[in-house]
């Protein structure tokens, strides 16, 4: 088999790239083990597409190349598959992800398959031109470069996150000096004072201010916080719903939650680590340019 070495190396590097990218983190997605199984299987197909495409190009097998391009296009379906799957779960979530976060996750999943194809193709090209060692080196460079490009930006880079005291002025709930909502029940006010925690987010730049103005970004923060700290809430206690309220004068955002685990330090860390969603990214820079 004339191209066996390059196809084998490309396939192995591609699968390895998918395995490394297939990590279940604190967002608990993909869900172990069924999500893993389907994504690993699709990863093998993507790696095969990438690995075989280079030898096919070198051998001038244009029919094969055309087929691989068609197969590669099928990975566009991954995005809608992930979107549908996550959207179906929204109704039963106490704190929903929100459509922006779902779209962001779906995009990441789609992009990961293109990375697998790219890594497999790079490794196969290296093996064809200079042997196994060059193939490994090119594969690693392709993987490192691609993951660097799609690495999500954490909120902490553009937003100041500080803990703030939950307090009441009459029936009005405040986090620090920021109004959150009106709570009519005395019992709920006592419980919120006892168990609630809060944070204030201050944008460092105009772009960050626009990002925090996006409802999808704020919902993503609340989803991550509620997912990790838990939330003392049920469908008949809407006053315990986590909230992110914006001050339209300053652009600051107050976060309020009644968590199962009352850890203000952890709350700050989770908010800082929340990714800036692609769809929520501020565009004030373009405003200046125009």
């Amino acid at each position, binding site marked *: 088999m004339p191209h066996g070495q390059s196809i084998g190396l490309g396939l192995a590097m591609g699968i390895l790239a998918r395995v490394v990218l297939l990590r279940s983190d604190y967002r608990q997605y993909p869900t172990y083990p069924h999500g893993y199984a389907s994504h690993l299987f699709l990863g093998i197909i993507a790696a095969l597409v990438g690995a075989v495409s280079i030898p096919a190009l070198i051998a001038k097998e244009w029919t094969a190349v055309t087929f691989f391009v068609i197969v590669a296009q099928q990975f566009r379906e991954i995005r809608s598959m992930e979107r549908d799957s996550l959207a179906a779960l929204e109704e039963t979530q106490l704190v929903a992800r929100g459509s922006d976060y779902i779209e962001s996750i779906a995009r990441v999943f789609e992009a990961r398959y293109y990375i697998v194809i790219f890594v497999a193709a790079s490794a196969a090209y290296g093996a064809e031109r200079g042997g196994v060692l060059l193939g490994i080196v090119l594969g690693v460079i392709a993987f490192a470069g691609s993951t660097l490009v799609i690495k999500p930006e954490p909120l902490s880079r553009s937003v100041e996150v500080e803990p703030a005291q939950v307090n009441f002025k009459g029936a009005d709930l405040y986090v620090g000096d920021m109004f959150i909502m*009106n709570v*009519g*029940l005395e019992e*709920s006010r006592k419980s919120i004072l006892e168990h609630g925690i809060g944070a204030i987010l201050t944008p460092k730049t105009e772009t960050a201010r626009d990002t925090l103005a996006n409802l999808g970004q704020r919902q993503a923060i609340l989803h991550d916080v509620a997912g990790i700290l838990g939330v003392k809430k049920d469908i*008949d*206690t*809407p006053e315990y719903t986590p909230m992110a309220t914006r001050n339209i004068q300053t652009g600051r955002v107050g976060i309020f939650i009644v968590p199962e685990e009352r850890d203000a330090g952890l709350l700050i860390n989770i908010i800082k680590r929340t990714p800036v969603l692609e769809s929520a990214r501020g565009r004030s820079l373009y405003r200046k340019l125009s």
Partner: protein
Amino acid sequence: MEITISGMIICAVTDDGAKVKDVPAFIVKEEAARQEKARLLSRILKAAVHDLGDGVLIVVRH
């Protein structure tokens, strides 16, 4: 898909019926009893209670 009405005042709990119009109102004179009535309505109707002051509580579905 479940279709529900959202963003509406379902009812009010007040110490004086004259303070509330066009919304079902529960008239309870005593503050503690008003709070308890509002709490029960909130849990039954899965809605939030807001305090408008002056002895008027409204039950709102958001």
